[in-house]
């Protein structure tokens, strides 16, 4: 797997404290979180292992202080991990020299920041062209490229504005533009829409998806908003106290939460818009073969009318038309509105949710 991955991080640790490396070594590199805290260290990232596949949107999701920002900074080496390895496009990022790192950042990485991090003394165009400027690209190329980006992010006519003259949403468009100026392979977005109003946030999410449908970047996106994660993510990693507690598709997190913590996050989501028929179906045997059928990949909200209006369980087919399961009313109702069970996930053990 990891050989195809754009970013591959293995057992990455970041502890804050007097001598974190020595502490880790004393515990053979795998202390418990409690041991870390007891020794007075702050566990920002704990044994993080994940792969970011080319072209996917991986969302790191967690509350403030869960270590998601630190983890993304370990992936870009803005923060030096205490231990572990990070491979970036086949290069050992942690072994890269200062010069190499600068080179990688100049050509292969882009980053968007929560509070925009625009340079107040530069115009929109100058902000966007900044990464090109530090590479030594000549002025004319820079201006042309800035114009392209400005129209890409929808800021036509505002190239000569200063950041202070723009609204929050517009400022973040500049931030996005700047991070795309060098056509990076990997795009890091650190809570890019958290500082914006809800309506603007929604608009910017749409904008982001539109851009991604054109650009097809490899993306690591941070958010503390589960709804945002679901809207944007191919896969979601949930972090808690520096640990990745679960990594998977939104559906998997909902139907099969690894811990109570994950379950709490997923409790309030609109399940019918996320779960597919395939994820909640039972064995095919019970289905009425002559009745209606639905696609396994269809969302529950799309199949609800069919299933609910049928007395018998309906047949669930895969893309090729093969019967793969059945779905009855009760299962569907339970999956969407049920409180104690989230589907046939099998883990009946932890059904009590406050």
């Amino acid at each position, binding site marked *: 797997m990891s050989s195809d991955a754009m970013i591959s991080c293995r057992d990455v640790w970041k502890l804050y404290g007097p001598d974190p490396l020595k502490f880790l070594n004393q515990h053979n590199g795998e202390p418990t979180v409690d041991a870390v805290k007891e020794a007075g260290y702050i566990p920002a990232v704990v044994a993080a292992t994940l792969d970011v596949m080319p072209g996917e949107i991986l969302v790191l999701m967690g509350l403030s202080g869960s270590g998601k920002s630190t983890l993304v900074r370990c992936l870009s080496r803005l923060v030096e991990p205490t231990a572990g390895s990070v491979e970036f496009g086949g290069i050992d990022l942690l072994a890269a020299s200062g010069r190499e790192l600068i080179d990688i950042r100049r050509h292969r990485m*882009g980053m968007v920041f929560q509070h925009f991090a625009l340079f107040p003394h530069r115009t929109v165009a100058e902000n966007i062209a*900044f990464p090109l400027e530090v590479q030594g690209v000549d002025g004319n190329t820079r201006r042309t490229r800035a114009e392209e980006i400005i129209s890409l992010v929808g800021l036509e006519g505002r190239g000569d504005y200063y950041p202070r003259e723009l609204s929050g949403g517009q400022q973040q468009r500049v931030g996005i533009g700047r991070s795309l100026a060098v056509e990076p392979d990997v795009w890091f977005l650190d809570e890019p829409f958290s500082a914006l109003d809800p309506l603007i946030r929604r608009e910017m999410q749409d904008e982001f998806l539109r851009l991604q449908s054109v650009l097809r970047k490899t993306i690591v996106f941070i958010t503390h908003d589960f709804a945002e994660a679901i809207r944007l993510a191919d896969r979601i990693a949930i972090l808690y106290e520096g640990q990745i507690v679960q990594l998977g598709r939104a559906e998997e997190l909902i139907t099969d939460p690894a811990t109570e913590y994950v379950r709490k996050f997923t409790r309030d989501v609109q399940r019918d818009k996320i779960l597919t028929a395939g994820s909640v179906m039972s064995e095919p045997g019970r289905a009425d073969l002559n009745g209606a059928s639905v696609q396994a990949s269809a969302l529950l909200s799309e199949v609800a009318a069919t299933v609910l209006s049928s007395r018998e369980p309906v047949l669930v087919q895969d893309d090729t038309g093969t019967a793969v399961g059945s779905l009855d009313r009760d299962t569907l109702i339970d999956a969407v509105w049920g409180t104690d069970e989230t589907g046939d996930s099998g883990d009946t053990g932890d059904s009590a949710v406050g």
Partner: protein
Amino acid sequence: MAGVTETAVPTGQQKRLGHMTGWRLALLLVSPYLLIQFIHEVAPSLFPNFLSVVNEDSIVPFRDWANRSLLHLKDEDLLGLFNFKDFTRTVSGWLEYPLDVSEQLLIAGDGPFGLSAVPWVALVAGFAVAGAWLGGWRLSVLVGGCSLYLAIFDVWEDSMITLSIVLVVAPLAAVIGWALGLAAAKSRRFEALLIPALNVMQSMPHFSYLLPISVFIGIGDEAGAIATILFAVPPMARLTLLGLQTVPAEVREAGLMAGCTRWQMLWKVEMPAARPQLMVGINQVLMQCFGMTVLASFVGTRGLGLPLLNYLQSLRIGRALEVGVAIVLMAIMLDRLSQAAGSRKPEHTDYTKSWLQRHPFLVAGTAVTVGGVVLGQLFDQAKVLPEKWTVSTAPFWEEIVDWVQLNLKSPLGEFRDFMILEILIPMRNGFESLPWLGLLVLVAMLGWYFGGLRLAAIVSGFIAYLAFSGFWIESMETLYLVVASLIVSVVIGVPVGVYASKTDHRHAAMQVVLDTFQVLPSFIYLIPVVMLFRVGPVAALVAIVIYSTVPAVRYTMLGLRNVPDDVVEAARMSGCTEFQVLRKVRLPMAFPEIMLGMNQVLLFSLLLVIIAAFIGGIEGLGDEILRSRTEQALVGEGLVAGFNVAVIGLTADQLITNYARDRKAQLGIA
């Protein structure tokens, strides 16, 4: 910060004494002191004398050490390599040249390259153009008008000499301070060294810079210039450091992610982002340099200070006032110009216009300079303003002085005598009889409460130093005047601050008043009060109060206005009257800030007490420093006395800033 779990951390005070508050706490902290004072007063026979005042034999001979090391530096080779005096003389030699050039450009004419002075008409017009460029027509009128005043009212030459020195020393001080601040921002270890050094430097009175310099360099413009540079470096270093430290982490990261090299980070990201603080720093450097250059007349530096000093000491108040007005106007000019430069925001460039249209002020500036020079060639009057065109305002001021003498002499005299006999002398006697052990215990208790054992050890060390320095009585004589002015300043300043914080309109108006007052060099306040009260402690007190009420008002306003609106609204909705809102919510929330204001008041007072002593009639540390100026053998004394001033300031500073930090953390305000 990512990865940090938020927990309520008890602040220092809570840890030490639980939640004890109010009178009981105060009593607990003060009781050891009261006990000592009680024994000292009631049963003096039980109280060992050496705990009251350190006797002559036990005094640590700091002054001899200071004297000897100065002499050593002066006469012997340092580490056998070079002579320190030669070194300082060399530095002063380097300065001599730019000082000459600058002066000759502004006033004297016929410089080393055959440069002749810029005609005064060109300078006045140049100021006006600079004002228009940096701040619009209002500033242009202000600056142009001020410089015209300087020309017409017969203070042109002295003003231009002062300006010529400032123009040389301010850039040097700014660059040195900037470099130090940069180094501190890049190296934690250097920062740890620099900050305490800056603290000490900034609480040393001006004369502590002038004295040793005059030993090595002698008297003159260069000595003043070097002392001025040393004096003006700390604020610039501090503000550079602050500016670089407050660059948002994200902006820095944005720079890194763009692939900046270290050099690019510094020049393309960090310096531009720190620009606001750097510009404040440059403004401060300019104002400090100006004030210090004038004050440097005490070591014979020419300019506006020299005549002022002479007039004040010979009590020619009218003349002194005339020079004082010139100093005020120049201070305002320099301040407003540099502030306007600092608050300029980048503007859009309209490339459809021609080059000339895009740079109107550059064009205008060149035009007036060339025009002025041409005029100067044609008419001598344009080159140097003829004597007969100038007007002296001294007679006008003399009349005012005479009128005051005639009409207000007896009420003012009565007031002065009453203050001295009934308030100041008893107060001074009280301070002089304070046993040093008592003060040490009191300060140690406060230090322990505000900052733990470490702080207690530091501040009691300070008091012990004062006790054994041999200037205990002098220190107390200085302290009493500082405390007296502190009380008056707070009594006046806090209510004024409360009043001014009430509406935006008042706040803005008060801000202008405060900014203007703050810009003026401290000793300016001495001129009118000397006219009213003659020299002596009452004059000093009034001058100090005028000067140091400014921070009292400013910090009160700041503290009150920083109280969050929703907290005030919550109080109103709970049914508080306006007075209750003030007393129960706004003042307690603003209290730490007000305390920081008092800290400033105290430092301001301390420095001005020393300056006031130079006019005469005030005992204490200032007097010691003054005497050491006239006799080189006493320079050690002067230095130790100056250091005592710094130690008094540092003690208060340590206690108050620790308190305010803790208290702000408790209140959850940044």
